[in-house]
């Protein structure tokens, strides 16, 4: 962390307002860094502001079921308590997300934003760079604070540029011949014996891990390991993503000769959402007691995991129902995540059904996705889960392809009950729309018809509101909580 002198040079005093984004807490190298910072703030009686998003992120970390992560959250909570006791904490309860904070405060030169370089917060700051007067403490990839006293240094540090050194069709040569029973190792030298293969795809084969049945090892096929993949693997190993429900590539795996050949991840067994979310009957066959609230919880749970990844500067990129697996305990796991976008390394693939209008027909290899792009994919996911697998742009007698209908925002659901229901797909989905609370209908209409983009935190909060609404209404109108209705 910066010394007290450096902070003094930055002219932080009792008139300043420091706005902290949770991404900074996650990215910071150690808590000692934060302590120097805290001491200085307390001495100078500087106000620190956090938004509702901060507390939502805090709650998300607590749900990780990972001790290290939980201790980060607890230290954060102590930090806030300390500020609060000294009358330095300002809770902006009416401000929901980073977009709103940045919009409202960026013109004030007394404001200091504190965030991670590749975060959604950074994206929003860059979005207002032309009128930016606020200063910033930016946490870089190594967990160190960089003080930026003017717009140019902020833009230089935060504007996202694709790492073009990885955009190449070249692939690594390796003499490694994979088969059952062969030994591989981690960089620390832990030796693993590959067991029976338990899955195979276009990129590689996944093997059971004989020494550790909780883990599996994915070995890439020859010709599949390119610069982008390899750089990403090492970066993934570095990022301490640990969350019950995210199947993260935890360790790069090397051949005994020391060549990188794949990675190790938790073994997840379960069913992908794509084979469960095929109408209410299939869902109820799998989960006979599920109600609408269970669908809402499921969607919330998955989106909170994506939000957790966002805090690290990671975008899922290739979001699809097939890449979410529900295990025997009912926990949804994000799997097949090795293609994700991390910092300046792009996700080279995408599924058209989840691709926002502005990226349809674009080449994913050549560009970075934004948080703004991904919030559309998250909205589609939310709709699909609440509507039993139905895509928001599926419709009767469609004029174009699904991709075209996404691009033209041809959304078949009316904004109010007097509207046109005739284009809603057959199977009772018109009734399902009729029974959706007005606030949620408007929310979907805004996104899919008007083209307004809610941030991921806003989507999560909306799902929570929906859940609570059903708690209240269920006693008077029990059918509201049914997944579906008889329609014939």
């Amino acid at each position, binding site marked *: 962390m910066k010394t007290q002198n450096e902070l003094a040079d930055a002219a932080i005093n009792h008139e300043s307002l420091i706005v902290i984004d949770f991404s900074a807490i996650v990215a910071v190298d150690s808590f000692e860094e934060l302590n120097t910072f805290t001491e200085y703030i307390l001495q100078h009686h500087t106000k620190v502001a956090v938004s509702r998003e901060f507390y939502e992120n805090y709650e998300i970390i607590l749900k990780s079921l990972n001790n290290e992560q939980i201790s980060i959250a607890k230290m954060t909570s102590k930090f806030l308590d300390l500020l609060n006791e000294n009358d330095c904490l300002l809770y902006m309860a009416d401000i929901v997300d980073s977009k709103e904070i940045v919009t409202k405060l960026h013109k004030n030169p007394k404001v200091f934003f504190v965030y991670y370089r590749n975060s959604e917060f950074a994206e929003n700051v860059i979005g207002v760079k032309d009128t930016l007067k606020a200063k910033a403490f930016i946490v870089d990839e190594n967990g160190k604070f960089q003080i930026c006293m003017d717009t140019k240094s902020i833009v230089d540090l935060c504007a996202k540029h694709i790492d073009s050194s990885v955009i190449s069709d070249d692939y690594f*040569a390796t003499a490694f011949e994979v088969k059952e029973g062969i030994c591989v190792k981690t960089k620390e030298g832990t030796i693993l014996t590959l067991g029976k293969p338990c899955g195979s795809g276009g990129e590689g084969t996944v093997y059971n891990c004989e020494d550790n049945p909780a883990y599996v090892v994915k070995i890439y096929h020859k010709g599949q390991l390119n610069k982008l993949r390899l750089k990403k693997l090492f970066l993934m190993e570095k990022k301490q993503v640990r969350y019950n429900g995210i199947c993260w590539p935890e360790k790069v795996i090397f051949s005994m000769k020391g060549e990188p050949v794949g990675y190790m991840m938790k073994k997840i067994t379960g069913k992908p959402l794509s*084979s469960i979310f095929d109408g209410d009957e299939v869902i109820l066959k799998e989960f006979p007691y599920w109600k609408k609230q269970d669908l809402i919880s499921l969607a919330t749970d998955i989106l909170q995991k994506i939000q957790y990844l966002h805090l690290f500067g990671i975008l899922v990129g290739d979001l699809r129902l097939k890449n979410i697996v529900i295990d025997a305990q009912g926990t949804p796991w994000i799997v097949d995540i090795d293609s994700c976008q991390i910092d300046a390394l792009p996700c080279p693939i995408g599924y058209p059904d989840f691709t926002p209008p502005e990226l349809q027909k674009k080449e994913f290899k050549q560009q970075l996705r934004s948080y703004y792009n991904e919030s559309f994919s998250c909205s589609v996911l939310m709709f699909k889960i609440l509507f039993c697998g139905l895509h928001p742009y599926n419709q*009767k007698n469609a004029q174009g392809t699904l991709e075209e209908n996404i691009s033209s925002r041809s959304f078949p659901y009316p904004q109010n009950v007097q509207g046109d229901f005739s284009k*809603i797909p057959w*199977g009772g989905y018109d009734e399902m729309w009729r029974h959706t609370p007005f606030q949620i209908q408007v929310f979907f209409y805004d996104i899919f018809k008007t083209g307004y983009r809610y941030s991921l935190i806003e989507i999560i909060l909306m799902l929570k509101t929906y859940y609570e609404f059903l708690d209240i209404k269920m006693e008077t109108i029990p059918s509201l909580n049914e997944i579906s209705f008889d329609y014939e």
Partner: protein
Amino acid sequence: MSIYEDFNAGDFAKSTKKRLPICFCLDTSGSMAAPTGTGNNRMQELNEAFSKFVDAMKSNDEVASSADIAIVTFGGQAAILQNFTPVSKINTPKIEYKERSLTPMGEAIQVGLKLLEIRKNGYKQKGMEYYQPWLVVLTDGEPEGKNELEEMEKAIAQTTALESQNKLVVFNIGIGNDADLNVLKRLSVKRETPISVRETNLDEVFEFLGKSSDTAVSGDENTDAFYGKEELKKGKEIDISEWCI
């Protein structure tokens, strides 16, 4: 009365999945009775391979909940053996040859395309999405029958027009040495040479079809793989040593 059934929306209950319609046009002419040297005749081999194929599709969750299958046969006349049915609900029918019958391939393909057309319209009316439909033509001979040359030309004109607009994927398969590969080839503008298979290796072809259906329902719109055009490696091999430990 029309041989074509109306689209049955009830088939799908409230399914929300994107459909993959597959229409088979299978040769059931007299030549399919030819022994293969394994103790079976061609028809028995075909039944075994087809039945394994359907079982494999059923055991793949993604495919089972997406694919719809229809079967048109051509032996003596073009006939619908199986109207479009979701794979999950299908009872694999026994395919039988007609002794000393001709091979009205052209008519059968036209019937198949008509079935696909009805199916696609049904999906549209119901509001269901669908992948590019598949037409699988399998024969061990050449088109024969009344006006068959004319019928075959009509069929070729239709398949190639649809295929070149990316509205159809064609699998043209010849069994044994007597299959007319020249005419099969003309059914597709995308496939360089028709798939040619020995009668004892029919399993391989159906395995390929199974694998392709899995690729299709995984949302990969790149159909090159179905035409045997594996993406060529554009890059070159490079040294890995700087990444080694």
